[in-house]
């Protein structure tokens, strides 16, 4: 991969998968200031690992692995300062003119995600993004049957949560 191609390809991979970074950062970091630091840290790691990207995986799976690993480590760190601070947000949400019912369900889902521990949070994000059990198992480093068991348990909890919210 030539230097120029690599750089351009990286920008396009980030642009096409920006939602992953946003969702992971949003799920692991409540504080908006720290969240933009987390996004920056994730992107630094993605860029550093991009040269060794294994093409047998989809870009989204590769991004999930790195983003989740960084988010979990970042979340656990007491110190939040960065080695190379940048001033602006790299990924920012522009104002939506058409808020709707969607927000309510998604915010309920985020609320549910926030109640989970760090590892189950990762599982939940992968599950909602329609990853296969095999992909989830690879990202998390557990067996497929273990994924299936845990997903089953999470579904039960979700069902309870939403039936409570609707009643």
């Amino acid at each position, binding site marked *: 991969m030539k230097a120029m191609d690599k750089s351009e390809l990286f920008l396009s991979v980030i642009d096409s998968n920006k939602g992953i970074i946003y969702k992971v950062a949003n799920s692991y970091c409540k504080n908006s200031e720290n969240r933009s630091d987390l996004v920056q*840290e994730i992107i630094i790691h993605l860029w550093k690992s991009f040269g*060794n990207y294994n093409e047998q995986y989809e870009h989204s799976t590769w991004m999930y692995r790195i983003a989740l690993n960084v988010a979990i480590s970042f979340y656990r760190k007491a110190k939040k300062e960065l080695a190379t601070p940048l001033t602006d*947000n790299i*990924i*920012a*949400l522009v104002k939506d003119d058409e808020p709707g019912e*969607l927000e309510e369900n998604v915010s309920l*889902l985020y609320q549910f995600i926030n109640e989970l521990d760090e590892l189950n949070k990762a599982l939940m994000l992968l599950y909602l993004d329609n990853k296969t059990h095999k992909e989830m198992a690879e990202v998390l480093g557990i067996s497929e049957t273990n994924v299936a068991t845990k997903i089953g348990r999470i579904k039960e909890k979700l*069902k309870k949560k939403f039936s409570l919210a609707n009643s």
Partner: protein
Amino acid sequence: MNELDLKNAWQSYDRKLDRLLEVNFQQLKDIQSIKAESKINSFKRSHVIVMLLGVAWVWFLGFLVYHTNGNPYFSLSIGLIILFNVFAVLLYLRHIIILSSINIAESITETQRRLVKVYTSYVQVGRVLLLQTPLYCTWWYTDELVQHGGPLFWTIQAVIVSVFTGLAIYLFRKLSLKNKSGNWVKRTDKFFGAEKLQNAIAFLDEIEEFKKEKDSD
């Protein structure tokens, strides 16, 4: 709302994010061009620096012991300090090896397990190093002092060495994984970093638990 509805809501949210999220390409290009350093690398770099300082310190102390013959108090105190520091240097070297082997694109449980192991070991090194503190109070004793120091001098020395020994043992025990409960204990735990260590150990247990296959909780 069933499972399918939930997933559909999430997919719609995804599409919405695609439309509403803006990437600052200039910032992205800056990250590519500057030598941005990740936290793991900066942690590793600080380990390398501390390890090199440790090697220099051990070499310097060894040099002193070698060239200061005939004072058993000095040789014994500094000799023991050297052993503590050799232990720390070796563990730091081990941490550097583990940190170098971490690939952030690997599975989450494995990467996190290694990171937490390094962190807990890092705190344990500091904990063990605390035990060398009293030795810094005894290296300057000589035969002459021992024979002619007098009761007042030795009473003061005994108090100083006892205070440092007590403090070192207290902190050694405080930074253990077993200390819990009690408000003042929690406050001091927070101050000395034991709380973070306990959280890290709890997370390690969480990882092991997560990896286990169970039918029910």
